[in-house]
């Protein structure tokens, strides 16, 4: 595989892609924004290309700048990572026009699956079950009410071009359907540029299960098993595992079969994920296709031993898949905890800032994908996910035990993060018994709060002891500026020297 690859992304996923490229001897060019000048992947890319600017619009979403970078540095291909331009059909078209290989599906497949109505129709025709809902776009409020009455409440009104948990609203009565129809239409027009809506039945507390697949340009498709992604906050995944406790062999086979049929119908090529909702009675419904490498791809890598980025690059270079379905073996269990720069004590508000200390967990069965380092300042312009902490075990129990240890050892100081939330989940009976669905998080938050209360006592004890260590001379002999943090640090340094002398 001979290519020079431009990476149109940042942070941990840019680093993840670079790692595979270095393994394969592929040269890389990393485009970056001004705040990302000192980010970790910049050090490991063979070439760097500053885009100029800070906001996503000026940088990682700017198609002309990125195409210019790729052409100017003589790249053959572009890997979009996830988010940003990963599923943007106009970007793929721009790549095609400039003879750049897009590492991902062709633009026709992107368009077919990016339009939610078209995706539903494609799946339905391929005999993949879809959630009961409107056949096409909703002409007006009256039609919306008519469809809602036919399929039964609650229903969810969705923007056809929406995504990322936005542009959708649940309605329980005909009045709400009318009201939310108007609101969602306005919101969709302003957020996504188009105001086309449709409507589906709202399933009650389903599980979110997805099938990872690889499809080559000759139409061969293999599935790499499922991922369980039910633990979410505001439609954003927080924790993923593979396999899922909710599936038996038979159901797994039916889901994989449905995923294959759906991807084949969309003429899909490259790595893709078919998401399903699974209801309490074991019925499943097509949700959407993620047309990219996903954040949580690493749990599949841990259970199958397959390097998904390598497979993506091979498929993009028109190589046939080097494996058949019989070669894929799911081995053991893997869990991924997304560590976000969000403060669990302040309602998960984002917390960009400087990481004073970073020490990632290590040990048997532990993998950390992150672009953090001590002294790194997390910019406020981009996503809050700062690390993916994964564990692998021969079975679920071992993976959970390893994750608990890893969470204890994970040190991120200076920026509040979601470590405590995952600690609470790893000790929650519902999670341990595999008894959870997409409504799970509300149930575990009180548990996290009581765990934090217990931890608070440890924190106070250490704080008081450190006060004794930093004990200042009597106040009257010092000017008022003596209590600046700089002086405190100077005192702390002196104390540390005492400690070394004591050895």
């Amino acid at each position, binding site marked *: 595989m001979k290519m020079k690859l431009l990476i149109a992304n940042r942070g941990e996923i840019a680093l993840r892609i670079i790692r595979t490229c270095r393994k394969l001897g592929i040269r890389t060019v990393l485009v970056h924004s001004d705040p990302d000048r000192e980010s970790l992947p910049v050090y490991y890319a063979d070439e760097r290309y500053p885009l100029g600017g800070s906001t996503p619009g000026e940088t990682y979403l700017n198609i002309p700048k990125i195409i210019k970078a790729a052409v100017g540095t003589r790249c053959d291909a572009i890997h979009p990572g996830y988010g940003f331009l990963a599923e943007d059909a106009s970007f793929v078209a721009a790549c095609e026009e400039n003879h750049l290989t897009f590492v991902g599906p062709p633009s026709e497949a992107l368009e077919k699956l990016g339009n939610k109505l078209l995706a539903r129709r494609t799946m339905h025709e391929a005999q993949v079950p879809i959630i009961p809902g409107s056949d096409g776009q909703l002409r007006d409020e009256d039609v919306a009410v008519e469809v809602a009455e036919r399929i039964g409440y609650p229903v969810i009104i969705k923007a056809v071009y929406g995504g990322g948990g936005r542009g959708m609203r649940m309605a329980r009565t005909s009045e709400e359907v009318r009201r939310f129809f108007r609101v969602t239409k306005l919101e969709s027009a302003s957020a996504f540029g188009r105001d086309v809506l449709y409507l589906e039945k709202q399933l009650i507390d389903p599980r979110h299960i997805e099938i990872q697949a690889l499809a080559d340009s000759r139409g061969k498709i293999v599935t790499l098993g499922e991922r369980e992604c039910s633990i979410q906050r505001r439609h954003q995944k927080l924790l993923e595992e593979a396999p899922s406790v909710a599936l038996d062999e038979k159901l797994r086979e039916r889901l994989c079969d449905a995923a294959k049929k759906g991807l084949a119908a969309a003429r899909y090529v490259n790595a893709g994920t078919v998401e399903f909702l699974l209801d309490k009675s074991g019925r499943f419904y097509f949700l959407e296709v993620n047309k990219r490498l996903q954040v949580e791809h690493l749990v599949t890598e841990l259970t199958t031993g397959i390097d998904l980025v390598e497979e993506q690059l091979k498929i993009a270079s028109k190589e046939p898949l080097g494996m058949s379905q019989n070669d894929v073996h799911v081995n053991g269990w893997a869990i991924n905890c997304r*560590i976000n*720069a*969000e*403060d669990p*004590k302040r309602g998960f*508000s*984002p917390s*960009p*800032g400087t990481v*004073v*200390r970073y020490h990632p967990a290590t040990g048997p069965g532990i993998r950390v994908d992150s672009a953090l380092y*001590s002294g790194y300042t997390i910019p*406020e312009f*981009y*996503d*809050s996910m700062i690390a993916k902490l994964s564990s692998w075990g021969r079975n679920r129990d071992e993976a959970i035990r390893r994750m608990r240890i890893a*969470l*204890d050892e*994970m*040190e*991120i*100081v*200076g920026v*509040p*993060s979601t*470590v*405590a939330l995952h*600690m609470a989940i790893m000790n929650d009976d519902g999670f341990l018994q595999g008894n959870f669905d997409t409504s799970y998080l509300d149930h575990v938050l009180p548990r996290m709060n009581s*765990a*934090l209360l217990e*931890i*608070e*006592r*440890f*924190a*106070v*004890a*250490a*704080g*008081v*002891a*450190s*006060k*004794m*260590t*930093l004990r200042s001379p009597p*106040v*009257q002999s010092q000017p008022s500026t003596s*209590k*600046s*943090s700089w002086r*405190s*640090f100077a005192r*702390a*340094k002196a*104390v*540390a020297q*005492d*400690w070394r002398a*004591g050895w």
Partner: protein
Amino acid sequence: MRDYRAKVNGRVYSASVEEKASNHFRVELDGQVFEIELVGKNEVLDWSVRSGERAVRAQTRALQNDIVETWLAGVPFATAVQAVGLANYPVQTDRTVERRYGGEIRALMPGRVTSILVKETDYVEVGSPLLILEAMKMQNEISSPIVGRVKSIGIREGETVKKDALLMEIG
């Protein structure tokens, strides 16, 4: 042996500390005993904290005045520590706790002001939504920690603000 009063997240703890050996402490916190050791000093102080069966590693750093910040489980616990019975040693408690009526609203995080929900002369209570600040792709409602009338608004919708920037004055 020394007694301290510690305040964190609105809760008050009483602690007595005994320095058993150099950098080795025994802390009794409202009846619960902790064995604490200073194990390192790098960017921050590193501590081993044990109580009963549980052992954790914590980091501390001194903030302004008498506030010590302890990091555990990925979150900071900013603790105001006051030595009991030491006169010339005034404690400065959490600023947000003291300033109940009037004051400045500053940005807790850098971001972009997407909408302002109050206007000058509006009366706000503790918890009244003041503005929406977008950071890390999330819309964050900033609510008032204080009571009073909005005296001045120093920002416009669409403006990008740095951390600690003055957003509003309430008097």
